[in-house]
């Protein structure tokens, strides 16, 4: 983990992940995801975001986190991130907050109630 960079940290299927803050566009409340007319790997569907339609990446499927779809809770959010020239959405059960250098001491995470955080790199995740 690179301490000089800030991350946004979220929970999905009882696991913790984080994504570089600099590629995050915003975090929006959950809205209904519209499935695509044709099935396509790794994409759950699309949502309307500002004036465009963006794909929602199916992290559960990509990372094989669970066989079941996670339930939609009041804490469920959609993280909007930039990927190449596109904007994509990622479903999160809960957004925990930002991890920055205050959370680190000697390269170890401190002051948080969980220890095992996986860094997600969209480029690697979405490469075919």
């Amino acid at each position: 983990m690179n301490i000089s960079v800030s991350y946004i940290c979220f929970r999905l299927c009882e696991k913790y992940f984080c994504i570089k803050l600099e590629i995050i566009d915003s975090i929006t409340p959950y809205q209904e995801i519209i499935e695509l007319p044709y099935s396509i790997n790794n994409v759950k569907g699309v949502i309307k975001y500002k004036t465009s339609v963006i794909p929602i990446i199916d992290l559960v499927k990509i990372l094989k986190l669970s066989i079941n779809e996670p339930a939609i809770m009041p804490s469920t959010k959609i993280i909007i991130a930039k990927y190449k020239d596109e904007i994509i959405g990622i479903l999160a059960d809960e957004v925990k907050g930002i991890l920055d250098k205050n959370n680190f001491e000697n390269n170890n995470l401190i002051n948080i109630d969980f220890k095992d955080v996986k860094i997600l790199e969209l480029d690697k995740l979405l490469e075919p």
Partner: protein
Amino acid sequence: MNISDPHLLELFVSSIDKNTSAIDAGLLELENQPENTDIINELMRSAHNIKGTSNLVGFAVLKDLSHSIENVMIDISAKKLSVSQLLISTLLKAEDLIKVLKNDFITEQPISEITGIISELEKLRAQQTENQSKNETPKTFDIDPESLSIYISDLEESIENINSALLQLEKNVQDKKNIESIMRFAHNIKGSSSMVGFTKMKELTHAIETIMSDISKDKIKVTSKLISTLLKALDTIINLKNEFKKGNITTDTSNIINELIAVSTQSFGSSAKDSSNTPIKNKEQSSDKKINILQKSDVKIEPVQQVKFNIKSIENMINLTRELTIVEAQLTETLNSMAVFSDASFTSKINQSVEMIFFMGKSIRLIQDEFMKSKMTPFSILLKNFPRMVRDLENSLNKKINLVIETSGTRLDQNIAEEITNPLIHIVRNSADHGIECPKERIKSNKPEVGTIKIYAYQKSEQIIITIEDDGKGIDEDQILSSAISKGLVSRDEAPSLSKSQIINYIFHPGFSTSKNVTEISGRGVGMDVVKEHIKKVNGTIELSTEKGKGTKIMLRIPSTMTIIPSVISDINGKILCIPAINVVKVLYITPSEIKEKDQTELLIIDGMAVPLIRLHSDIGGNPREYRGKYYAVVIGLAEKKIAILVDKLLKEQKIVVKPFGEILCSLKNLMGTTILEDGKIGFVLNVSNLVSNSYAL
């Protein structure tokens, strides 16, 4: 030499000193930066100053020398002269001489000889200009790029006007208006060409103007040979123009000018014996009146003040206005949902806002329409060369053809226009070559001697319907069928079961040709296949109907724009699918028993044609609905092919703007993107061309 006024002398000396040192420095700088116009201008000014001051004190010799220097500088600045070392050193020599002359002048000594240096300078100028005039390029013209582009567009307009006027003149020699208009436009070109220093163009147009003025004074009679030569001259003008644009003028104009002079002297008076020189009678005047009228109202470009605009930036603005309308819809939605929870006084305020937003939305849509319109080109511009083309075809085929064009203000996107120009040329050439019979044959079959090709275009919202109709011999079905059998496209057993339209459609097959002999005009029958491909590219449809002995009619339906797509909004398993309206041939309400099956594909029989039936339900997800009763089948056409898709509901028709898929979703081949509908819902837009080709690949 005496100057009575000491002040004047002082002024003269200081001015010469100042300017010579400026020239000194300037020349050295110029040697290092020969392209620097600031330096050149400075030098020009200095030389001019010296000239002026010398004149003031009556020092003619110095005036002449500085005048020479100034001329050299003018040539350099006009890019007629390039800066060479020799040039610089000669100029420096001249500048030294100025100083000598000045000293001679104030010390009242005999004035030094300057003719040597002046002739040296003149020689340099002459050499270079000679080289340049051999290879005339726009670079030699001292004009900014903007004026050049104005010159070119004026030129193009004038050429077009001369072209149509010439063709009309041929049909109606009496019409003085055409003569005048050719004369005027030739004169325009002459004037503007001489302004930009385009001598070849000037000379050629001058020759044309002279002939026209002789015609108008009845000194020369209009013969078909004269018209042909004038058209040839016009071709040369077009060549010159294109070369001018490229900056490399190589076309030789002397031949055509001589030809023009020769033909005009031949046509002089009535002494002509050559049959081709006999004055043209007003041939087919009655039928030609129509085309004249149509062209006058249509082909001419409206004299509205115009600015050039980048299409990309217009497209951006259209997209932005589109986003505004989406925001508008969302804003209205939000306000309406607020109104439910508010008290009465607040509700009325909200309603007011909703109303205001509605008016804003109306303006946004008007802006959008204006942008759309400004992006489009009149359809008639596409056809501007068609009268000429048909005339050339008439001559080379020895046929008589009357072309009727009616485009009634149709407009379309530039990129679509470019895509369909070639197909149209092809279709018209086909009609002229294979459709229209030669005059003898036509008379034999009781038809008017002159064949007719009509091009009609009209616009229906964002669609343009173009029909190209000829009254020729039509396409022989039996010949197509036997050709199809011999090429193995259809078996002999299957042949009798084919419907008329199925047979005709074989001509869209790659490499299919019915013409017994390959001709230069329309090639070897790859034609209709190519036409089809172009039409497919713009998502258009093509329909061909023909009657033996009566003629052929081809109908093209093409979108006028790719930016805004009027679509049929349908519902499949609760998902919204937008089908571009241009491709929707019809909607059928069918019972399950009408669906036939062959080789595991479902088919519908529509107008005697078997059309593949596509169910998108399984792809869309959810359970394919069990159909009780009837279905909606949307028949979709692309180029000459048709398919049908089953949908649950037809919701409405709406104009949509497609957002193409990015990298992540682009593997959805049967869709081209998404759109946000006016009610804020997400719609998926069908990629008709992929779906149709996939269904036929099966």
